[in-house]
């Protein structure tokens, strides 16, 4: 439905402002979380939290990779392929390098714990790797790291490969979030508050939703408005002009 020029003007202003608000929000997550650790009133500032401030690359790049992987996974590839537009593989090499830096972050975290000999750090690493969330940790690291090489080799047209990799990365990122949140919450100050988190029914339903590219291949949920604008930017004539001109 076409809209009045004033409507579109308000829409575009809001669109731009939402993008402007979302970008610093995503980029600042790590700063805000570490700030939260640093200034929190409750005495939870363990040695690990201090050193975590210094290990910025892993969470920061992990977040970026996760959101970047979401693009081909959630919305990008099938509709764009449908419209013979650009594919996500064009950023493959850069993504692969970031993935290697994240791997380095994982390894250095383990190394530093034992190198410094700090008993809290060692306990934390051991808890993460072999504690109750150990299986998640042992899956998330390789899922993120191992995707580097195939991603670097994925050509711009290899959509299927990019989608598969992005699903692996997203599952890895999901597991990493699970580990981070659960390990910091499952042992509270009072041993009576200790417990464990388990997936609920809906949580289990959530993971298979990564199969939605299959659905998207047939039902393009990417707004056609955005596709139209992409085509305009690509110097192609918009479809609306090509359709039925006499």
């Amino acid at each position, binding site marked *: 439905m*076409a809209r009045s*020029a*004033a409507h579109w003007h*308000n829409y*575009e202003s809001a669109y731009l402002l939402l993008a402007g608000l979302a970008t610093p929000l995503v980029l600042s997550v790590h700063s805000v979380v570490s*700030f939260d650790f640093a200034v*929190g009133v409750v005495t939870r500032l363990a040695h690990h939290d201090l050193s975590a401030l210094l290990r910025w690359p892993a969470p920061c790049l992990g977040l970026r990779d996760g959101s970047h992987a979401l693009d081909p996974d959630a919305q990008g590839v099938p509709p764009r392929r449908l419209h013979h537009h650009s594919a996500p593989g064009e950023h493959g090499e850069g993504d692969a390098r970031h993935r290697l830096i994240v791997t380095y972050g994982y390894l250095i975290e383990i190394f530093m714990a034992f190198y410094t000999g700090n008993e809290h750090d060692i306990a934390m690493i051991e808890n993460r790797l072999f504690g109750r969330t150990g299986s998640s940790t042992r899956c998330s690291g390789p899922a993120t790291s191992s995707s580097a090489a195939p991603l670097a080799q994925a050509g711009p047209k290899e959509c299927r490969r990019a989608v598969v990799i992005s699903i692996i990365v997203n599952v890895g990122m999901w597991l990493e979030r699970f580990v981070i949140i659960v390990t910091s919450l499952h042992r509270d100050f009072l041993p009576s508050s200790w417990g464990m988190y388990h997936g609920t029914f809906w949580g289990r339903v959530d993971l298979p939703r990564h199969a939605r590219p299959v659905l998207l291949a047939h039902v393009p949920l990417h707004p056609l*408005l955005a596709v139209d604008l992409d085509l305009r930017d690509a110097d192609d004539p918009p*479809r609306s002009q090509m*359709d039925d001109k006499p």
Partner: protein
Amino acid sequence: MSHHGAKPALHGVMGEFYTPQELIDAIEEARAAGYTKIDAFTPYPIEEVWEAIGHHKSPVPLVVLLGGTFGGLFGFFLQYWVAVIEYPLNIGGRPFNSWPAFIPVTFECTILGAVLAAVAGVFILNGLPEPYHRSSTWRASQPRRANRYFLCIEARDPKFDRDAARELLSKFHAIEVSDVEP
């Protein structure tokens, strides 16, 4: 809507164009001819169109600024109220008003307020949902016209003259010029 009291005979005259450029040319001509109550309808946002019509400033940024300011103040003073007034707790001898600890929540509330204001602002300023609007409803009643560009010269314009408006729209290769019933 007519301001002349009698039952309005016409909402306006609608011209239909193939390309955005023809639409923009027609808008500029109509503005030069002194029409002020004109509105354009496009299938996607085109900045040149609302610039040509004369919408230079959208109120949305101000709404977002106010929403963000309110959200930030609300987030900060909610924490202040809890930690200082309603339930002061001595935690390791730190001051009740440990404002640095309030900053992350204040920041998130600022963004939340701004985002909610942006979304709500667009709906309210655009008068959405809008089940009936003469121009939109007229367009929807036309088959196969989802991808065209329209300019409506409205009858409430003080300079409105049906024949002159039709002639003006026809000059720019309008595919069709139609009367829009009220």
